[in-house]
């Protein structure tokens, strides 16, 4: 088990030393600052704009980081042959995958925390105090982290068998489609026959990012039900577990040429 921890912390170290990360984080911080500016232009809704823009930035930049770093996790190691010296040790292949997963999600959690501090700072600046309804922003951030969990598991899955470019394309497409997952299920409900079968299957397989996006509600200071939090948590864990198992199964049988 400690091997998993070592691989995870090594992945984390790799991500932190990857300069791409700093550029993106800086950009996101700038965007939060821009949110304050925009809020001042449209009076009365500064808070709304700060929350909307800030959380959207955290979400989108996290997605970009997750994909950029995630796609290379396995394929880069194979390409550069750094994997050979790791797997010739008593490291099991599944430990490698799981370690990479935790390293990547750990990176994103830390990243999200940093950016969230920025958002709250901006919020404090425009509202001058925190209100009770601000706690729902934490829930929205938690949901964003759950999104990252799912996305990391997916990029890892793709990285275990395809090239970085294709992995990025697949992961990004699934992110977009997953954001409309509820509509896809609606469409499946309205169609008939074979289309319905296929559409329903796809609608349930696609990651349900739409339910994890409560930015609009939170911006309007609406509460999020505890049941939704529980179900979403369970869903994100189950879905990630599914993708990681897929990655493990593929990687177990992969020949490293």
């Amino acid at each position, binding site marked *: 088990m400690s091997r998993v921890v070592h691989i995870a912390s090594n992945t984390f170290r790799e991500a932190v030393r990857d300069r791409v990360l700093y550029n993106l984080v800086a950009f996101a911080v700038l965007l939060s600052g821009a949110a304050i500016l925009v809020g001042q232009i449209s009076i009365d809704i500064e808070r709304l704009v700060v929350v909307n823009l800030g959380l959207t930035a955290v979400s989108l930049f996290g997605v970009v980081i997750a994909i950029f770093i995630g796609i290379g996790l396995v394929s880069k190691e194979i390409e550069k042959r750094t994997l050979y010296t790791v797997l010739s040790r008593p490291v*099991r*292949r*599944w430990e490698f995958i799981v370690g990479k997963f935790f390293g990547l999600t750990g990176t994103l959690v830390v990243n999200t925390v940093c950016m969230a501090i920025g958002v709250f700072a901006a919020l404090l600046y425009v509202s001058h105090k925190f209100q009770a309804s601000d706690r729902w922003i934490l829930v929205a951030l938690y949901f964003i982290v759950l999104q990252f969990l799912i996305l990391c598991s997916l990029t890892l899955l793709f990285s275990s068998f395809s090239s970085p470019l294709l992995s990025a394309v697949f992961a990004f497409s699934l992110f977009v489609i997953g954001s*409309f997952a*509820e*509509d896809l*299920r*609606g*469409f499946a*409900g*309205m169609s008939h026959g074979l289309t319905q079968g296929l559409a329903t299957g796809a609608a*349930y397989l696609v990651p*349900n990012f*739409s*339910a994890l996006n*409560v930015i*609009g*509600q939170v*911006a*309007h200071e609406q509460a999020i*039900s505890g*049941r*939704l939090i529980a*179900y*979403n948590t*369970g*869903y994100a864990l*189950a*879905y990630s*577990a*599914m993708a990681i*198992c*897929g990655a*493990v*199964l593929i990687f*177990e*049988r992969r020949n490293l040429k």
Partner: protein
Amino acid sequence: MSGSRKVTVAASILLLLSLASSVLLLRRVDQVRSHATLEEVLYFSSPKWIKRMSLGYDGLLADIYWTRAVQYFGSRHVAHATDYKLLAPLLEITTALDPKLIVAYQFGANFVAPKPPEGAGMPDKAVALVEYGIRNNPDNWKLYYELGFIYYYMDPPEHAKAAEAFDRGTKVPNAHPFLRVLAAQMAQHAGEIQTARMLWQAAYATTQDDLIRKNAVTHLRALKVDEDITGLEKMVATYQEQTGMLPASFNALVGAGMLLGVPVDPNGKPYQLMFDGSIELRTPEDFPFVEKGLPPGYKPGPPKLH
């Protein structure tokens, strides 16, 4: 078995388990979410804002919102809802993204204007929607039809404005000649059953949308029932004048040469002749929208569109 086999088996089992649980949890999430996605629509004070945010992918987003509107209405309808407050905003966003989506305007006319539980009960919004559609599609005669339709079914009905709308439509090149007939009918015989029938037939003919057509058919059947019962009640009155008694059954009317047989409703079930001479439907719940033939104190349930 070797380590690798163990891992393969364990991972496969875990994969199936997590697949099952993710599907189950997803359904739970959907239940809790219900219309949360749709209610976000209310946060957009201006549909123009959405258009700007759509980054040029208007068409796709319009389709998505149209799908959501239909689903919203359909699912609430089946659940016998009493309000459809999101329908108008959804259609407004749909048409803001794609002003040429004619069926959205037709949907608005049919289901935003009428009172609940048939529709959202917002005729003014429906009028605004269709006028917007006319501005963006000035050569589409169907929209003038829809406008007149809305005015006709307002409460109280605005027959004059309906006639005017149809009239405007007749000036469009390639307008269906039928529109001229409607305009004339509306001008002179606004309150009659025949006018209503023409309107519903037109509603059926001018669209391909399933829900709208079903709605039109339901109305036409109701009109038939109303017509039948009006006629039957007149016959009963005539019989009473002639014989000084109420007919005991329809056979009495047949004997008097007024009917050829026991009259049946559009479903084939016989009408019922009550003791006081009124005519009633055997199964009034089969005919939403009827105004006659209902037992006293009958409260119509929500209309079923099937």
